[in-house]
């Protein structure tokens, strides 16, 4: 039995559930919007791993029967409105989530993905070091609180972009005259600059040992927000060079991610450069544009199936 932890209002979780249902893979949904209020949990640890049950409104799942877990935690907007003091409610929700995370960390079955594995995404420059070690090229990156260093970097690289270093999402922007005039603000703390890499965006999803590459054609600096600039996006399935594909799999494995979304760019000279790895990829966008069977691969991974079964 597969356990899906997420919110039904979340399109990605909904797609995973739909694919599991298509394939006849048995699963239970622990709807995090209603967790823990609508569930009863009894998890018991002795010297072995955890034992016990999770009970939903009309089902009970023995931990020993779980063959795979898909988890996609929700932000406050995905939860039921808190009762009583919001600070206390938030603290209690953290406590409930912490218990669930501890359980998922300790289950012996495949978990997509364990919490600790995703932590590297909170520091992009840290992750860049890991990606480089896995054999992926990373763009020239400068993290600095020194305006002179930022100016020198731009002078050397020509076109430069800036973006957040942490897990807080930001729109990638080019460093232009307006921003250069405000470099003095760097004194408050370092920011991340990268050499602009020309070429075509390629999004890679690794699912276990399978790789799905999607080429994205757009004029936007950050294709995720192309619509904000009135620009179009086109996506096509792509084939990666074997060495790049192997490096992507190695990076995911090094990060302990059974399922990863890896952002690459293919330069005009054919070289591939890696920007980051997303431990909780919203793959629905790519699957819908290309028809690539990413959710099918996730379903097979959770079920322990080696053979892809298309709906």
């Amino acid at each position, binding site marked *: 039995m597969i356990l899906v932890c997420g919110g039904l209002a979340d399109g990605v979780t909904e797609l995973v559930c739909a694919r599991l249902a298509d394939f006849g893979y048995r699963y239970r949904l622990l709807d995090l919007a209603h967790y823990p209020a609508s569930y009863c949990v009894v998890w018991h640890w002795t010297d072995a*791993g955890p034992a016990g049950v999770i009970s939903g409104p009309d089902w009970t799942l023995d931990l020993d029967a779980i063959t795979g877990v898909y988890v996609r935690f929700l932000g406050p907007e995905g939860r039921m409105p808190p009762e009583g003091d919001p600070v206390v409610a938030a*603290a209690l929700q953290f406590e409930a989530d912490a*218990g669930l995370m501890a359980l998922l960390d300790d289950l012996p079955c495949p978990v997509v993905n364990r919490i600790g594995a995703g*932590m590297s995404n*909170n520091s992009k*420059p840290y992750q860049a*070091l890991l990606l480089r070690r896995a054999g992926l090229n990373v763009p020239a990156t400068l993290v600095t609180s020194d305006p002179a260093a930022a100016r020198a*970097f731009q002078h050397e690289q020509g076109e430069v972009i800036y973006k957040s270093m942490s*897990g807080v999402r930001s729109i990638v922007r080019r460093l232009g005259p307006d921003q250069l005039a405000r470099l003095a603000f760097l004194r408050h*703390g370092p920011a991340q600059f990268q050499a602009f890499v020309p070429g075509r965006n390629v999004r890679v999803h690794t699912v276990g040992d399978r790789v799905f590459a999607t080429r994205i054609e757009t004029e936007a600096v950050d294709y995720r927000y192309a619509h904000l600039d009135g620009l179009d996006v086109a996506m096509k399935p792509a084939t990666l060079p074997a060495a790049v594909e192997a490096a992507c799999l190695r990076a995911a494995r090094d990060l302990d991610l059974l399922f990863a979304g890896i952002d690459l760019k293919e330069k005009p000279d054919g070289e591939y450069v890696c920007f980051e790895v997303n431990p909780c990829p919203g793959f629905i966008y790519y699957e819908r544009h290309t028809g690539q069977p990413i959710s099918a691969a996730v379903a097979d991974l959770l079920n322990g199936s080696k053979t892809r079964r298309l709906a």
Partner: protein
Amino acid sequence: MKIFATRLACLRYRSLGVQHQRGADAGAQVLGIGRNPQQRLGGHVDGSLTRLAWSIELNSSKADARGCLGDKSEGRTGPAAAGRSVSCEDAVMHLLLGHSWDSCCAGVLARLEARGLPARIVPAPLTPPARLVWRLDAAGLASRLSWDEQEAELASVLVRGTGWLDPAGWDPADHAYMQAEMLAATLAWLTGLPCPVVNRPSAALWYRGRASLMTWRMLLRRCGLPVPEQLVTNDPAKARTFGHHLAALGVAGAVYTPLTGEAGYLVATDAGWQGLIAVQARTPVCLSEPHGAPRPACIIGGQIVWDCDPPLEVRALEPRLRQLAADAGLDFLEVAVAPVRRGLAVVRVDALPVLEHFAPPAQSRILDALTALLVPATAPHAALDAP
């Protein structure tokens, strides 16, 4: 077996009735930054134009407050805050990333200075007036940090903190963003330092600093270290059954330990069990079998320092404790071993050892060993990408 309700700094048994609504402590909210990055996506996507690191517009009050930070904050400029000022001759230094009130930092600083080695306690190494230039490209990693216009060549680093950004003068939303940015930069900076770094963190450790014993269970089990029996449940009947099960084995009560807090509460009376039911109505609770008097130990490099000389059966755990530290990638780790009904068990693991858990002779040995790690013949865990 006689059960001791021993008070430790990090394990306080209290009346559940008084404390049960306290829930998770502030530490949980700190952890929230890293635990679930998706939680913050929505708001920051919308506000991204004003959230991008250095492009944040500072209002005048914040700018004023930032101007005061150099006077108010530790470790930035003054000898009073930083332990000592750094002169030009002191450019090669040992950096203690933590606070001057941390006895570990203070003790190591004193030892390094006694050897004539320049050292400095810095709680937030990347905040003003520090200037960081960290560059990764095809040639590798090059990293340079300057304070007071003087480049800091680091001989070693002891990690005792994560570099908390003083919120004074910051809009709360901007502070949360900048704190996340500062944590991200500091982690990368520490990871790439070519010098010895004691407790060079992984992302998992960096963002889940004081993790509960539950979080360590898998690693402890892998190392063959026993752990107390634990139950997580929001079913009051199952919690009470756990209490009865322990009582039948001669153990009075169970210990309720919030997974996002550091305190433990002995639940042994009817009032206590009723209080627990009130908590369970909102969240599952973690109950552990009570344990006897804990015996703390520090693992420093390959050395283990016990608070007092342990009996043979405790000492027999040493190879597995060393393995635990090695598997966790830590050079400096505190554990506590205590008797439970089935023998000995590890009842606490802390990647930020607390010196006050030890008597003065053991404290001294710990500080000596820690200092030796910082000025080593053999370096602690190597950098991920040396220049």
